[in-house]
């Protein structure tokens, strides 16, 4: 394409990204090497924030908790989303789009309302535990203001994204290949593992990243549903910019989060491997 046209078309978008993504990122990076004192930033360059993050076990614990949370939420979303996406793509017929939109219906209400609605179901006075109470059964502790409760909330939040990613991948998948596999002796499960899965693993990987990364950084859901011991890395991070006013430490936490997320991307990248193994035809067969 003509270079001039290229820049004219992609220029505005690129500029937008640079200003609103790169600038804050650099700012945070700079701040993370500064110091906060009585709610003011002091520009003496040091590594104290990072040393504290790496030595004070609290921060590592919260990071670990968020990593575990993100892993669990991603896996559960994966297990839920595949059958939904597969069903819609394969048998949705003319209702495909409607069914797909239905999966994102919860988004029509906004995040806070959605989480509040979950409280109504999971909380001590919620639907489940009140019902149990009526039958004289002890309430389920795990559901009330706990990490489990947060995990349920986060899964509920991100499943639509995972469904969308897998669905879009399946739209490009030739379902006739499954019949070929069957005629050639494959049973349903081998047909899935041999054909469907490899040809849709990039879409799935995108779905996993779409769920994993935001969950790693999430704070609102755990704030509403997690209870006293349910704080995640995101909550602690938010605190630094709020009540405690330790912006420099918060920035360092942000930088750590950023690099952990990049690391996750790289791991997923590696797992996808040779693109030709995903049915993508590039001359030479590069990696993703």
């Amino acid at each position: 394409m003509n270079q001039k046209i290229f820049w004219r078309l992609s220029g505005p978008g690129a500029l937008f990204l640079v200003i609103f993504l790169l600038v804050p990122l650099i700012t945070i990076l700079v701040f993370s090497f500064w110091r906060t004192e009585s709610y003011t930033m002091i520009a003496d360059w040091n590594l104290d924030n990072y040393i504290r993050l790496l030595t004070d076990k609290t921060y590592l614990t919260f990071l670990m908790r968020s990593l575990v949370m993100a892993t669990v939420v991603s896996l559960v979303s994966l297990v839920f989303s595949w059958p939904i996406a597969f069903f819609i793509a394969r048998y949705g017929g003319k209702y495909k789009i409607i069914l797909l939109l239905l999966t994102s219906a919860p988004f029509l209400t906004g995040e806070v309302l959605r989480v509040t609605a979950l409280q109504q179901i999971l909380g001590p006075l919620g639907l489940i535990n009140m019902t149990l109470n009526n039958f004289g059964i002890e309430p389920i502790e795990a559901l009330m203001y706990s990490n489990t409760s947060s995990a349920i909330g986060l899964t509920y939040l991100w499943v639509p994204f995972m469904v969308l990613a897998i669905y879009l991948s399946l739209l490009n998948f030739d379902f006739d290949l499954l019949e070929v596999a069957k005629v050639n002796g494959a049973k349903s499960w081998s047909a899935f593992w041999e054909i469907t899965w490899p040809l849709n693993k990039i879409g799935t990987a995108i779905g996993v990243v779409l769920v994993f990364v935001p969950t790693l950084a999430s704070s609102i859901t755990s704030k509403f549903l997690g209870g006293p011991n349910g704080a995640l890395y995101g909550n602690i991070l938010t605190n630094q910019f709020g009540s405690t006013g330790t912006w420099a430490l918060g920035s360092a936490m942000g930088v750590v989060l950023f690099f952990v997320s990049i690391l996750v991307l790289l791991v997923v990248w590696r797992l996808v491997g040779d693109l030709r193994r995903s049915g993508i035809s590039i001359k030479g067969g590069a990696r993703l």
Partner: protein
Amino acid sequence: MGIVLELKNVSKNYGKVIAADNINIEVDQTEFFSLLGPSGSGKTTMLRIIAGLEEPNEGSQVIINGKDVTHAPPYQRGIGMVFQDFLLFPHKTVAENILFPLKMQGASQKEKDENLKWITHLTQLEGLENRYPYQLSGGQKQRVALARGLVSKPSLLLLDEPLANLDLELRKKMEIEIRRFQIELGIPFIYVTHNQQEALTMSDSIAIMNYGKMEQVGEKFSLYHDPDSQFVASFLGSADSIEAEVASVQDGIATMTFHGKTIQARAHNGLKAGDQAICYIKSERIRMEVEENPDAPCGVVLDKIFKGQYIDYILDIEEGNEIIASSGTLSQIKAKDRISISWDPQVADAFPLPPKDPS
């Protein structure tokens, strides 16, 4: 030799559409069997039922090597299948594509190696084992699809218009190759096509399909020369048709009046005196003479089309009946010549004309 495939009263509906209407077939161990018919006539449905991809209606029976497999899943049938658009697995190499059926059977590495060597040699794919499908030409893809269908030495190979996406030259070459594979392997091939040239070139037997019905089955020569039904008479070869009134029927030959001229053809379907008939004659069976014979249908040459191996004459017979007559390239007849035509009654076929819709 033994019967490998038997279909008994096989029917299949999709709602109101009858895709297979009481089909009965027997296919022999060494037979190259074609299902020939226009698009939508139910050929693919037939193959899918044989392969186990489609459940036929109640009362249908699919028997392979004497075993009733009507309700058996595809993986229990020991069948190979080749599809129209190749349908290779894009994420697998040529070798992996070919070996897929053996992998599914849990074959040993030794068996896989041996069979791969044998089949890549047979299909001339040696050296391409590590390529991916996108790195292959159309002909090579088709060979891989064939190799995948044959590698597990199935008792039967089904082919659904496997050459439809190839260009003419390649198609001619592959027709001969596929036939060679079939002879070499000694298993029956069931070959679906809407291209009669293909069916005639490769087959031993042909079944003609139309609207889910099997119009006629038989050895290809007899099918071409002795059609049983109006559809087969009109469908096979390049057939001209003439409408005429039946004067008499004797010894299976109908004598008919066509614009005051007398013509003759074999009578079918209870054709009798007084009926309106439609009469089919293959283009290459029509003889032309330059002298106008007062007893024979006459007309004028509208056009002369040189086809290489023969010439097609477009004729206007008795004003308003367009007919094509094929002739050797040495014919001296020219456009605008007035001619009369004739044919041997034994090579023309007359059927009762269904009453015309008043609409």
